[in-house]
C-alpha cells in the first residue's frame, strides 16, 4: 500500500509539472506609468493621459476618486501616496495639480523629476505658463506631452530636443493649414 502511494505521488507529481507550465519569473520592477492627470484646485480636469486600456466610465470613476483624495490632502504632506494598488506621485504647481500613477514601488523620486521636466517644457513653450494657457491650448499641452513621454516612458531626456521637435511639428502644421482665401473659408468657392 505504501509503495503504491509513493508511486502515485511520483506519477501525479510529474503530471503536475506538465500541467502547470513554469512561467519565467516576472520580477515586478517595471516602472510603468498608468496615467497622468492635471487638475485644478476645484477638481476640474485639464489634461488626462491614459496609458492603460480602460473604458470611459472606469476612467471617469478613477479620476473622480483620485482627485477627491488628493484635494483632501494638506499642503505639507508627502508627495507620494498609496491608492488602490498604485503608487501616486503628485505635485502642485500654482493652481494645478500634476498627478502620475505608477505601477511599481521603486523610485518615486524620478517620477517627480519627470513631472518637473514636463512643467519646465510647458513653461518654455508658452512662456511663463499658467493654467489658462493649458485650458485654451490643451491640444498643444498634449502634443508636448507626447513629445516628451511615449507609452508612459520618457523618450527624450534633453529639454532642448523636445522643444525643437515641437517647433518643427508646429511649423509643419502651419504649412499644412496654408492660408486660404476668405471665400474658400466661407465655402463660396
Amino acid at each position: 500500500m505504501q509503495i503504491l502511494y509513493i508511486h502515485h505521488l511520483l506519477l501525479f507529481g510529474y503530471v503536475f509539472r506538465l500541467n502547470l507550465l513554469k512561467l519565467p519569473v516576472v520580477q515586478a520592477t517595471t516602472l510603468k506609468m498608468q496615467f497622468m492627470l492635471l487638475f485644478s484646485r476645484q477638481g476640474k480636469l485639464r489634461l488626462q493621459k491614459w496609458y492603460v486600456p480602460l473604458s470611459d466610465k472606469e476612467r471617469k470613476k478613477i479620476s473622480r476618486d483620485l482627485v477627491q483624495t488628493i484635494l483632501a490632502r494638506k499642503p505639507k504632506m508627502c508627495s507620494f501616496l498609496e491608492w488602490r494598488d498604485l503608487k501616486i506621485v503628485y505635485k502642485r504647481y500654482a493652481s494645478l495639480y500634476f498627478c502620475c500613477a505608477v505601477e511599481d514601488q521603486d523610485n518615486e523620486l524620478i517620477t517627480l523629476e519627470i513631472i518637473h521636466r514636463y512643467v519646465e517644457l510647458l513653461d518654455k513653450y508658452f512662456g511663463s505658463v499658467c493654467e489658462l494657457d493649458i485650458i485654451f491650448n490643451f491640444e498643444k499641452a498634449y502634443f508636448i506631452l507626447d513629445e516628451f513621454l511615449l507609452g508612459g516612458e520618457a523618450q527624450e531626456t534633453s529639454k532642448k530636443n523636445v522643444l525643437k521637435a515641437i517647433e518643427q511639428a508646429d511649423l509643419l502644421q502651419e504649412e499644412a493649414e496654408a492660408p486660404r482665401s476668405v471665400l474658400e473659408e466661407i465655402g463660396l468657392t
Partner: protein
Amino acid sequence: MYFYNVNELYRAMSPSVPLQEMIRAIRSARTQCEERGVIQRECAAIRAQFRQADNGGRSHNLAKLLYVHMLGYPAHFGQMECVRMIASPRYSEKRVGYLGAMMLLDEKQDASLLITNSIKNDLSHSNQYVQSLALCTLACMGSAEMCRDLAPEIDRLLRASNSYIKKKAALCAVHIVRKVHDLGGVSCIASSGGTPSDNSIPRREPNSVLHGAVVLIIELCERNPETLERFRKTVPDLVQIMKGLVLSGYSPEHDVAGISDPFLQVRILRLLRILGHNNEGASDAMNDLLAQVATNTDSTKTVGNAVLYETVLTVLDIKSESGLRVLAVNILGRFLLNNDRNIRYIAMTSLQKIVGTDHNAVQRHRGTIVDCLKDQDASVKRRALELSLALVSASNVRSMMKELLLFLSSCPAELKAHAASGIFNAAERYAPSQRWHIDTILHVLTTAGGDVRDETVPNLIQLITNASELHCYTVHKLYRALLTDISQQSLVQVACWCIGEYGDLLLRGECQETEAVQVTEDDVLDALETVLQSHMSSPATRGFALTATMKLSTRITDNVDRIRSIVSIYGSCIDVELQQRAVEYNALFKKYDHMRAAVLERMPVIEKNSPGHTNGESTGEAIKDIQPAKVKQGEPLLPPQPANQVCDLLDLLGGSEETLQPCPAVGAPAPGLLINTASTAGGDLLDLLGVLEPAPLAPAPTVPVYEKDGVTLTLSCEKQCDTGLTVTLTASNSTDSDISSFTLQAAVPKSVQLHMKAPSGDSLPARRTAKVTQMVVLNNPNKVNLKMRVRISYTSQGSAFQDTVQIDSFPGLDAAGQ
C-alpha cells in the same frame, strides 16, 4: 448686409465657432445648465460638420469635440472622424486625428482596429513627424493584435532610422513586448534590440536612444530569463556609459541641477540591478561603479537623491560586497534625517525591505525611525509604524513599547487596528515579564480597545490564567479600570471575567504588587451590575458580566441573596442569550445547589491551542485517534524527488513570498508575522473558553474543505508538538452511485515536511454508508504559514474525476501555523 469683421462673417455663415471662442463661451456659462446648453449646441454643429464631405475646419472641429470630451461629455460620435482624419494627407489633420484616437479610442473599442492600416502607412511615411505620430499612438493605445501586425515595422524602424525615430521605436517596442506575450513576437524584437546601442560603440548614440534601448532591454530581460543571460555580457558597456555620465563635465543639454542626464542614469542603474541580481560575476563588475556613484552624487536636490536612491536599491538587490552594503544603508540613514518628507518616506520604504536581512544595520537608525512616528503626515506615520514594529527586539522592547503605546494614543484612526495588533504580537514575542505583558495589553485595551481584534479577549484571558502569581495584581488593576470606564468592550469583558474568577482575591484586599484598596462585596456587585445595565455594553459583554456575577456566588459570603435576585431578574430578559443563562443559573441555585460549588470553581490553566478536544465528535473517525504517532524529527519522509515536484506546485500557491521561504536564521522575521495578523484561529479558543459556562468543552473542530458532486472532504487537525501536526482528512460520498479508486495527494510549502499515511480504503460507497480517512503528518520546523493543496481523484460511474482544493487555514491553528 454689412459684416463688421471676418469673425462675424464666419459666425454668420457657419453655425460653429473657433475653438477658443467655444472654450470661452463654456467657461463663461454661469450654471451647469447653461454650460450643457452651449455644449449641446456645439456638438450639434460639430456633428453637422462631420457629415459634410470636406471642409477646411475639420481639425478645429475635432479639437472642439476633444475639449468637450475632456469636460466629461459623451463624444463617441467623433470616433469615425478620428479614423478619417488620420487617413488624411494633411499633417494638421493627422495630428489632431491621432490625438483624438488616443483620447477617444482605446483598445476595447472596435473602431481602433480601423486605424491599424493608417498607422502602418504612416510608419513608413517620408516625414519623420508623421512617423512619430504613428509610433506615439501605437505605444499609447495599441491592442495586442495591432502590435502583432505592426511588430515587423517597428523592428525595421529600430534598425535603420535616424535617432529621432529610433528612440521612439524602442519605446514602442516596449509597449509591444508588454502586450504580446508569445515569445515569437518578442524574440524578433529581442534580436534587433540587441543591436542598437550595446554592440556598437555606445557613445555614438545620443542619450535618448540609449535611454530607449535600456528601457527595452529591461523589459525583455524581465520577460525572458534567456534574454537576461544574453544581455549580461553588456554589463561592462553599461558601466562605461554610466561612468561617462557621472564623471563627465557639465553637459548643458542633459544637465539637471548638476547631474548629467539623471533619467538615463536611473534607467541604467535599474538594468544593472536586474543583470546583477543573483549573479556574482555581474555584481563584481559593477561594484566600483556603484561605489563611485554613491559617493560622488550630489544629494542636495531631489534629482541627486533620485539617483542615489536607485543606486541604493541596486546595491541592496545584487550580490554586493559588504562594504558597499554598509554604504547603501548609511545613505538610507542619511535620507532619514533629511528635511524633505518625501525623502524620509522612501528611506523608510527601502529600510522596510531590508529589515529582515540587514537587521542590525537598520537597528542603528531606530531612534530616527521612532521620531518619525510623530510626523504629521499619515503616509510617513504608517511607514514608521511598520518599521518600528519590525525593529522591536528582546533588547529594546521596553523602550520601543513605550514609544509605540504613545503613538497608539494619538495615531490616526486607520492605523489604530494595525498598531494594536502589531503591539500585541511584539509583546507576545518579547515580553520581559508576564506582568509587563499584562500591563501592556491592558494599556492597549484602554487606549484603543475599540480597534482590537476579537481574539484579543480570549488571548488575554489565557495569558492571565497562566500568570498565576499575578492574579491578585491583575484583578485589582482590572477592577480599577472597570470603575473608570466601561465603554471599551474588550476591556470590560476581560475585567468581568477576572472579577468573576478571582473575586475572592479582590475582596481579600491585600496585594503585593499594587497598593491595596478595600473592596467590599457590594462594591464588586455594584460594578458588575453597572455593566449589566449600561446601554454601552454589548450583549456579549453583558453575558460576561452575568456569568461573573454568578461565579461570585461561590466566592463571596454575605451577598449571595443579592446575586440570586440579579440572576432571577434576568430570567425574563429580552435578550435570548442572557435569558437562557439566567434561567440556567437559577436552576443551579434551586435544583442543583449541591453542584454549584463544583461547577463554579476556579478554572484550570488554559493551554494555548491544546490538542485535547476529546469530548463530542462530528465525524467520529477523525477524533478516534487520541494519541496519534509522534513525528520524529529525523523521520524518513517521501523521497525528495516527488516532494520537489509537488513543492514546485506550491511556488504557485501564491500568498506572500516571505512566508513561503524559510525564516532566516539571523533576525526575526517580524515583517512576515505582521503581515499575517489577520488571524483566524481565535474562534476555537473562544470555543474553549466557551462563554464561560460550565459546559463541556466544544467538540474538536472539523472543517469541511471540499464539497462538490456529492463528494465531501472534511479536515481536522491535532498538534503533536511544537512543530508537528497531524491532519486527518475524511471523505464521504452522498451520491447514489459508488465511487472507486479514491485517492488524495497533498502538497505543502517547501520547508514543511509531509508524510501521508495509508488511507483506510479507496472506495466510497454511495449515500455515505462508509467513509475513507487518511492521516497526513506534517512537520513545520520553520513555523512558516501553513497551507496545503489537496488533489482529489476518483472514478464514478466509469468516468474519472479530478479536482484540487487549497486549504489556507487549519482549525486549531493560529495564523502563524503554530
